């Protein structure tokens, strides 16, 4: 069995694990990390948020957790080596778009800028703005559902044959726009073994709950993550990623 697994990973032919979070940007399970994909990386994908964890984006129950499951569909591009931009739609899976529901998937734009690149004693340090078009008078002040402004640092360590990544960040309000996705301190980590580098275990605290997942990157293109939100309900990410 062990040999079979090694053969599988060998055939996948990937040397590094690079992760997409449930948000759509580079990250752990839900939280962003300070890591960046290589320059010119393009990702397109979808995520699954289980029922009981999805926040409604429209109508009377807007901003409230509802029983419907949700999904994010996203396009992410590293337009510069230190600048990642993402555009995403957030879907409530049980809702239909029609005049009665007045529901339409929520749109969101995110930009992440790496300020410091990781060195021997320095972590990657990245600043991110998420769903903040209202702060620049581009949408109405109350329209944002996932606004967030954060600084996050990530440092990697080699411990024997294991690669460990530690992430710590803080999200806050930005100008007069309230942080709605994350607010406060968030943290997490990733762990992989040098012999199976395309399999990684990740765990994070997203300012509300602890989440955990395993993820892999297959055939240099396909990114998969399966995990549990709040260590209770299943969540997943699938993304197709390649270098332009």
């Amino acid at each position, binding site marked *: 069995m062990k040999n079979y697994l090694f053969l599988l990973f060998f055939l996948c032919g990937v040397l590094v694990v690079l992760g997409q979070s449930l948000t759509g940007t580079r990250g752990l399970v839900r939280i962003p990390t300070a890591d960046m994909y290589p*320059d010119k990386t393009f990702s397109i994908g979808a995520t699954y948020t289980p029922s009981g964890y999805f926040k409604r984006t429209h109508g009377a129950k807007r901003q409230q957790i509802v029983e419907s499951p949700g999904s994010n569909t996203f396009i992410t591009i590293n337009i510069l080596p230190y600048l990642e931009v993402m555009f995403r739609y957030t879907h409530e899976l049980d809702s239909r778009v029609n005049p009665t529901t007045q529901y339409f998937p929520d749109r969101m*734009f995110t930009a992440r800028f790496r300020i410091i690149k990781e060195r021997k004693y320095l972590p990657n340090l990245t600043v991110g703005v998420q769903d903040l078009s209202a702060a620049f008078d581009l949408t109405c002040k109350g329209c944002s559902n996932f606004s967030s402004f954060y600084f996050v640092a990530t440092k990697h360590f080699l411990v024997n044959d294991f690669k460990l990544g530690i992430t710590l960040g803080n999200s806050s309000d930005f100008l007069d726009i309230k942080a709605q996705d994350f607010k406060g301190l968030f943290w997490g980590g990733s762990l992989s073994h040098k012999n199976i580098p395309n399999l990684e275990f990740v765990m994070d605290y997203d300012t509300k709950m602890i989440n955990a997942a395993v993820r892999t990157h297959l055939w240099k293109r396909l990114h998969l993550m399966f995990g549990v939100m709040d260590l209770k309900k299943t969540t997943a990410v699938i993304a197709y990623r390649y270098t*332009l």
Partner: protein
Amino acid sequence: MYKGIILFFAGINLIFGQSNLNKLEAEGFENLAEFKQESHYFLTYENNRYRYEGDALAIVLALLEYSDNLTDISILIQNRGLPMTKVHFSSQSWLNFKSGLIGIEDWIQQAEFSINVDQIANLFEDLKKTNESFKKFDAVVGLSLDYILGNYDNSIRQKINIQPELQSVLGPGVILSGRYNIPTFNDVDNEDSYMVMSRLTQDFRFKKNTFLNINVGYFTNSRFGIYSRMDRFLDAERLRLRVDFGITRMGRLNKDFEAESNTINKYIMTGGFIYRWNKYDTDLSFRYGTFLGTDLGYKARMTRQFNEVFVSLFLNKTNFGSMVGFDFRVPIGPKKHLKPKRIRIRTREHFDLIYNYVSDANNIATEFFTGSNILNQFTEYYPEVLRKSLIERLKLKRF
């Protein structure tokens, strides 16, 4: 006098390089000419066979043959019969690369790529070109997508437009083209098929990297009139100034090719600059002025070029409101077209998609499309883009 001497030498040495012209013509390259000046070999070509200029240059280099007594090779790349970019390298460095003594990066470092071509273009001016690209017809088939999102009754409205186009380069820089639009799967509007664009365009290249493009005819958005654009490159491709001026009125050719128009002229007058960040093949541009809706404001744009893929983020802000969005340009169709003949059928080379993320109002900084010109195709010919694409292609021996 100087030119006369060169032509004399060129005449003597035409026999020497004839095989290069034959091979390049057989491969479908056009506007070919060559000559030798002492130990310096000069070649010019135009590519209308390969979708990407980087691929074309790699092929030309792979096909190139020359005798041992040559020390220098200069290649002038043309578009629509106008000079675009020159490549100069020593024959020894190319031999060293081919024999594996140096890597492609080393060869690229030794070679000179430049858009400053006034001098070398003069040398070719009076030479007769082999396999001219003029008065040939391309029948181009393309697709475009219009869509509207966000209506509750039909959340994704779309219109797929099939757009056959006929175009011909009549002479250096002159193109006559017509594009017909056939809407299908249309739940956006009730538009009939019609002639979406028919125009005559002239590109000029003056000395000191100054370009002018003038268009007359029917353009997209049902505009009829004249539109011009002038670009002046400063510091080679790194910085260019741009001025646009157009006078148009509503006008179009309907499905029966009858003209429909009104008499209200509208003006577009803008000026701005484009800064080229060569390290990342990125254009940062800014234009200020009045746009089609008579609104006054600016357009700011960042465009990253990934070989043939372009990704842009933009902000348009005028007295009508603000608009933020992004657009993509991706290559479609085969990388290599049929050889250009009197009439050739080929696919359109790109598919464009614009997404307006947020917009206060309709018609913010609206413009129309006047068709392709050498200025909006120039980035493929940029020295840094050619360098990088050669590194990719010659490293992989993709020729």
